[in-house]
């Protein structure tokens, strides 16, 4: 018994040490970013960033507050796109998944196949880009941030269909139908409330995808025509693109051109603003999020 408990303690200690180190490695970059954003810019350039600011300064945040028109607009665009996109995406996904969860519906297998096939084969970026920009003309409109790719994920449709099929008893539906409830009302009043856990999980995943998305803006918004639609991610991305452009074309990097670019600590402060809402909300959605991952990882 003595040996056993010693072994247990050894295992537990190793587990705690290793996990602690990994948790630390996961968090340290964030600490560095926040510390960088509170560092005096000249000190940062001369002596570099550190996990604790070498010379504390609020300059970067003062700049952000002065330029709040740009930052605030990007923030509100992010919120509009996230909320609007998530709601629209949930509506389309739930309705489609509910339809293909009807076991005897003629054409059900065809509809299911139509959802799954794009997971295996796709037209590629070029033709997707061509279709959205030259057929549907969504370039430099808000739809560019909502429609392409994100609106309905095949994976979520299948997860939701499985949920409807396994947890909603057909008997309840049949009984309600006998009572003469219309299908849409039945779905909204009975099926959706019973499916609250999966709707919350998929909505959460969707919201995170919209919040974090920068590719749609990269493809379908141009700085000139669509700059006013930039979300916070796109503002961060476009700052980088401009810096890269100048450093790759150094003859263009005149004093005037570089002056317009935010200094290194301001960039770090903007990045902090880009992830702050997620960090603040994380403790509240962590549980749902983990559930969503296990739902997706283990196929039913």
């Amino acid at each position, binding site marked *: 018994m003595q040996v056993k408990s010693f072994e247990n303690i050894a295992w*537990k200690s190793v587990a705690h040490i290793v996990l602690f180190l990994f948790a630390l490695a996961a*968090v340290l970059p964030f600490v560095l970013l926040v510390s960088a954003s509170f560092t005096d810019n000249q000190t940062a350039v001369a002596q570099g960033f550190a996990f604790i600011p070498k010379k504390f300064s609020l300059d970067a945040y003062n700049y952000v507050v002065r330029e709040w028109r740009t930052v605030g607009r990007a923030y509100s665009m992010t919120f509009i796109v996230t909320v609007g996109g998530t709601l629209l995406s949930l509506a389309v996904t739930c309705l489609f998944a509910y339809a293909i969860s009807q076991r005897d519906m003629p054409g059900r297998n065809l509809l299911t196949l139509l959802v799954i096939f794009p997971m295996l084969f796709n*037209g*590629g970026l070029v*033709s997707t880009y061509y279709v959205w920009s030259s057929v549907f003309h969504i370039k430099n409109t808000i739809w560019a941030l909502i429609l392409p790719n994100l609106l309905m994920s095949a994976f979520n449709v299948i997860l939701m269909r499985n949920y409807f099929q396994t947890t909603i008893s057909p008997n309840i539906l049949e009984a309600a139908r006998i009572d003469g409830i219309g299908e849409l009302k039945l779905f909204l009043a009975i099926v959706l409330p019973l499916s609250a856990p999966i709707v919350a999980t998929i909505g959460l995943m969707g919201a995170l995808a919209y919040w974090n998305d920068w590719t749609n803006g990269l493809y379908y918004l141009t700085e000139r025509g669509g700059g006013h639609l930039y979300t916070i991610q796109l503002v961060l991305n476009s700052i980088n693109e401009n810096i890269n452009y100048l450093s790759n074309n150094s003859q263009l990097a005149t004093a005037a051109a570089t002056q317009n670019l935010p200094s290194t600590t301001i960039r770090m402060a903007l990045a902090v603003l*880009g992830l702050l809402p997620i960090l603040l909300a994380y403790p509240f959605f962590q549980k749902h999020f983990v559930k969503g991952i296990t739902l997706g990882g*283990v196929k039913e």
Partner: protein
Amino acid sequence: MVVFAREHPLTRVKSAVLFTRVDISIFGICPERGSAMTAIKKARRYMPFYIMALPGLIYLLCNNYLPMAGIVIAFKHLNFQKGIFGSDWAGFDNFKFLFASNNAFRITRNTILYNLAFLVIGTTLAIALAILMSEVQGKIASRLYQSLILLPFLISWVIVNYLVNAFLAADSGLINNSIIKPMGKAPIMWYNSKQYWPFILVICSTWKSIGYSMIIYLSSIMSISQDYYEAATIDGASKFQQVKQITVPLIKPAMITLTILSIGRIFYSDFGLFYQVPRNSGPLYSVTQTIDVYVYNALMRNSDFGMSSAAGVYQSIVGFVLIISANALISKISKDNALF
């Protein structure tokens, strides 16, 4: 049936649940339904569901199926004035150009080798962490570790770009200032030195995704019955033996499925990782450019629709073959885990 249909709406549902078995049997002999129901009647009964599926169906057509038709772009000399179908045919010219250049080999090699590295390192680490996590008994400690290790998974690659830059920036970066300079060496121009990037990219990818795969394996470990471990303890098996003889064999199905799935997707790379983290820096292309980044750069930077779409179609077709083969392999090993 008729009786509780007239009852109060709240009690109705409840009683309906209790009596449904009876209801259906009554309904089953109803002459309107049953065998006499024609296809048209059935379709009409399902009309509301077709309408519900319509928005999703339209979206699939616009977002997925129309672009599939757009694959012809790869076989055309695309001219925007003439549109896709008015443009001149190019045959396999675009593909010839692509494969005649060094690019095709380079981007294929990068995509496949990085995916293999992510797969081996990611899977090993995720399983090791999941096993250790299952040893942590305290609820709070376990939740805390999980949340923190999962944190990087929540943020976008744009933000990761900034985080990495705080370490690697030539002037203000932490590594040059706090490690390289004190050693008396010249600062390293990270974004111009390609020899470091295979390591940097593997670290970044693992850092961001390890929490996700750890949680998947942890849920698989948690579903193992405690009885096995208790029996093994009574038999005097050591912890290490238990892990080797019980845990690993029992999470093997999950491991095999996930591995085969990743092999099926080995031709696809995470655009964000390879585009954002190296900051699309030209000197690094030979070790950082994957198929997805190449397609993007050819399309958006050089407006080279021919090369870009040829590379995209090459990816789609080989990717499709790989996914189908991977799935065939899964269903051979265990039918339940097959995707379709």
